[in-house]
């Protein structure tokens, strides 16, 4: 206990009790928190500053240009934006039905003694490092796609422009499939939280009115729709920023092609591949500008996701899951 408790103004401000130890403790914690805020602000400023060279030279045409020519110093982000968005969309299309199915099974159908270990196993999919997925993609998934899946798709569905391109097993489709496997545990984990947060009274009401199991589940899904949307968007945010697994299986060719079997290039892959070998300041600045674009896009996407998911899980008092 401090012997002299005269209210020195700075002590009162820092701590409601006027205790010196409290003032020191609270200001120390505050400074650390402020430091982290400063780091993130510094991150944005650094990215902006280092891409200034490229921004000043290209302006908005950077976003529309399809040229990526380090030798002539002409850079454009469109192929990478296309690759990033396309691979993430493919991943969502494949992953969302599976993730929903998994979450519904674990929350509504499985008995406790199955749900807990199986849920743990699904979450383990999220613990596998990205580079391991890439390794598995190169040596297991790509050959399977090349030998069985892609020829079959080209045979049966080749009249659709999507299912054409070079059948090498490496390309946009492979990248999308790997991403789908990687984001499934995240989406299903958040949807599980969302479904658990739906009040039991809704289920009981549906069943009391004579609904079958699936009809009751549909009621629950409608209830949790905003949260499910948030989970999907969270998965999208994760897929947009994924680097290593995609770099290893997407082919890394900066060209826009509608054919899913053709190679593509994402923003993160471009940075990973070319950063250490960038020829000149303009090249490096263009890569940093790509990083800035990726940062802003994932920032917005994650922000939307968080708003949707928080509203659903905080209401019921559940703790939000770390993304």
């Amino acid at each position: 206990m401090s012997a002299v408790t005269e209210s020195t103004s700075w002590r009162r401000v820092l701590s409601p009790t006027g205790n010196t130890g409290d003032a020191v403790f609270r200001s120390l914690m505050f400074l650390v928190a402020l430091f982290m805020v400063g780091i993130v602000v510094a991150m944005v400023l650094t990215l902006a500053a280092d891409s200034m060279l490229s921004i000043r030279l290209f302006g908005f045409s950077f976003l529309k240009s399809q040229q990526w020519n380090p030798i002539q110093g002409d850079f454009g982000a469109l192929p990478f934006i296309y690759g990033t968005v396309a691979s993430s969309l493919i991943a969502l299309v494949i992953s969302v039905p599976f993730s929903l199915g998994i979450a519904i099974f674990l929350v509504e159908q499985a008995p406790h003694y199955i749900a807990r270990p199986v849920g743990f196993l699904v979450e383990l999919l999220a613990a596998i490092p990205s580079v391991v997925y890439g390794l598995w993609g190169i040596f297991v998934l790509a050959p399977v796609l090349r030998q069985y899946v892609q020829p079959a798709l080209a045979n049966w569905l080749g009249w659709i422009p999507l299912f054409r391109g070079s059948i090498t097993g490496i390309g946009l489709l492979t990248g999308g499939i790997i991403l789908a496997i990687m984001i499934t545990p995240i989406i299903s984990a958040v949807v599980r939280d969302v479904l658990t947060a739906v009040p039991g009274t809704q289920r009981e009401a549906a069943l009391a009115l004579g609904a079958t199991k699936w009809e009751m589940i549909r009621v629950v899904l409608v209830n949790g729709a905003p949260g499910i949307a948030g989970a999907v968007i969270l998965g999208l945010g994760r897929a947009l920023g994924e680097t290593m697994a995609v770099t290893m299986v997407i082919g890394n060719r900066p060209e826009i092609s509608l054919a899913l079997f053709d190679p593509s290039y994402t923003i993160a892959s471009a940075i990973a591949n070319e950063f250490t070998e960038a020829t000149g300041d303009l090249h490096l600045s263009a890569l940093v500008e790509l990083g800035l674009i990726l940062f802003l896009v994932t920032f917005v996407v994650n922000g939307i996701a968080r708003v949707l998911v928080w509203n659903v899980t905080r209401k019921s008092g559940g703790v939000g899951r770390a993304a």
Partner: protein
Amino acid sequence: MTNYSNSDRMRRASSAVMTSLTALCTFLAVGALLVILFYIAWQGIGSLSLQFLTDSPRPVGEGGGIGNAILGSLVLLLISSVFGLPIGICVGVYLSEVGRGRLAGVVRFIVDTLTGIPSIVTGVFVYAILVLPMRHFSAFAGGVALALIMVPIVARTTEEMLKLVPHSLREGALALGAPQWRMTLGVIIPAAAPGIATGAMLAIARVSGETAPLLFTAFGSRFFPTSLNEPIASLTVQIYNYAISPYDEWHAQAWAATLVLMTLVLGINIIVRFLTRRRF
């Protein structure tokens, strides 16, 4: 089956179909996990040996190993934990115990933002602020990049664990005359310590699998680490380099290195799950 109309039977049938589909989805997901894990074990076990685990890389055809990469990963984990864990825990304590109103909202928003930043962007940032001024890659820069990824994870779990401590403990400490810092350090944190420790372990497991931020901070090396100011090898970057090489021998080494990495990552995850199991 008396007097059921056709529409009733349709509804039952579609319900049965859909519920089996969800079970199928789960079965496929678990199956995918097991396939991946068994494949890693099957491919990797062939190249594992004591020599592999202790040697440094050699040119193709001469064997070599991942000893320096394992050591490098441990060094990077150590550096990132030294920076990341204290800062993360302090931020968590701030958000849970100290923060008030608007300011705490801003901090929480920033921490959430940091969670969602792609790790390659973190690597670019650390490159700009550490590697460029120092004019060389370093283990230190790699550790800082990993710490930046670690902080938001640790902060989040610390905050959640601290919030789970019952209010009666706080009220008891305050009623006995403890100032807030004494209450937090002496009562609340020890009470939440197991949760905070598991959060730290999960963050370490997550960070040990990161590759992208290391690509241009720690960069990679073929030698055993001698100083923190030099580039350093790591398990993940080594796997990446071997995987995209054209040599079968290096591919086999990549699988074996993956087996080592997966043992570490899965081991931590399973231990954490075991420690946090409910005993009801």
